[in-house]
């Protein structure tokens, strides 16, 4: 028997199994999403070149928000290191990433982008219809087949350069009319209409929703950071969150920078990072203003 580098797919499977083990140990409710936790065959997605099982590089788990601390403590107690906290990951601040030797990273989600229902209520809605799936000979909890399909659709809606012809839409394209109706109802239950429509069409019907601009920008591969910033601030709930979102999006991602250089940033590096990010923000705003002032024919 030899220790060796495992196939990436196997490390992801084992991470799912270990995450479930630790969740059971600490009493945290978790649902495994995306990657090998998607029942591709049941959803008739198995034959795609972009099969999520084959392209996944980490394990994603959605944790009941009230159990997030329990889960993070359980993982760190078992040797997992926090690589990115919630504010250092994606601009949605929805997931923290942890890693350990020999396994794939785990992304611990406290909510899923696109689902705008209050996170605890949204989790409970998904939890009540959960299923069991065996991965690496271990039983894990996954959302219902319908919810698995919806989560893939919502995820596709924020993929960069989302293209209506791409296979990212397979979870929608392969759904029969009855399933499409069920998907729309589940999206409504979860207050996920905007992201759902961004992926499946009809986004104009929800143009008055605060998150409309954000999902319109994400689903069309918006390149302007300023427009994305404005859309995210508009999508934030309440003025406090708007201010917090606006400020946090202007701050440099020090977690990622520290991860890149392999150590925490020192005081001078932190200061330079903030100054550089502020410069970038100002340059982008100036470009945007210039762009907006130019006649439409001159815009590039």
């Amino acid at each position, binding site marked *: *028997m*030899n*220790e*060796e580098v*495992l*196939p990436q797919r*196997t*490390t992801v*499977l*084992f991470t799912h*199994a*270990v995450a479930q*083990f*630790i*969740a*059971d*140990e600490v*009493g945290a409710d978790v649902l495994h999403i995306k990657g090998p936790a998607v029942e591709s065959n049941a959803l008739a997605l198995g034959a795609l070149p972009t099969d999520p099982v084959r392209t996944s590089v980490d394990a994603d788990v959605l944790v009941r928000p009230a159990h997030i601390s329990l889960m993070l403590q359980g993982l760190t107690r*078992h*040797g997992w290191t926090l690589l990115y906290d919630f504010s250092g990951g994606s601009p949605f601040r929805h997931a923290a990433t942890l890693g350990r*030797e*020999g*396994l794939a990273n785990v992304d611990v989600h406290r909510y899923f982008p696109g689902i705008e229902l209050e996170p605890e209520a949204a989790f409970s809605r998904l939890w009540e219809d959960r299923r069991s799936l065996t991965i*690496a*000979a*271990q*039983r894990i909890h996954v959302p219902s087949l319908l919810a698995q399909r919806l989560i893939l659709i919502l995820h596709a809606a924020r993929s960069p350069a989302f293209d209506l012809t791409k296979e990212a839409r397979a979870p929608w394209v392969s759904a029969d009319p009855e399933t499409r109706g069920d998907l729309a109802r589940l999206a409504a239950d979860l207050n996920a209409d905007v992201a759902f429509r961004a992926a499946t069409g009809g986004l104009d019907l929800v143009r008055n929703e605060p998150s409309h601009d954000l999902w319109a920008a994400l689903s069309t591969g918006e390149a302007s950071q300023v427009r994305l910033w404005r859309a995210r601030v508009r999508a934030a709930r309440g003025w406090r969150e708007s201010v917090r979102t606006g400020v946090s999006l202007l701050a440099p991602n020090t977690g990622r920078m520290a991860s890149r250089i392999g150590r925490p940033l020192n005081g001078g590096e932190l200061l330079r990072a903030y100054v550089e990010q502020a410069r970038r923000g100002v340059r982008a705003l100036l470009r945007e203003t210039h762009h907006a002032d130019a006649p439409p024919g001159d815009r590039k």
Partner: protein
Amino acid sequence: MRTYRVASDVAYEQVMGNSQAPGVVYAMVMPDGMPRALRGSAAMLWSLVAEEVADPVGEAARLTGVDRCVIEGEVAEFMESLVREGLLEPCSSLRSPAPGVRPPT
């Protein structure tokens, strides 16, 4: 010879082989163990245990075409080494319930 089963806290995956690459079994004791690889006859024996074949030694002898008496000692030694690593457990040992699983009331 004792009989064995995969320990309940072991995650494993069997990767089927082909003419170029033989099958491999990857296994780890959760939650803190390091994943290990079992190849060749080790992978075959693991598969027989995991599939709860009644007489894995006899089946291994049949599959490899080697006399049972020749392999029995080595197989027993190998199985015991996996028990020491926590990957297998003797069937006589009581299986502890998985965390969070309550007995039926």
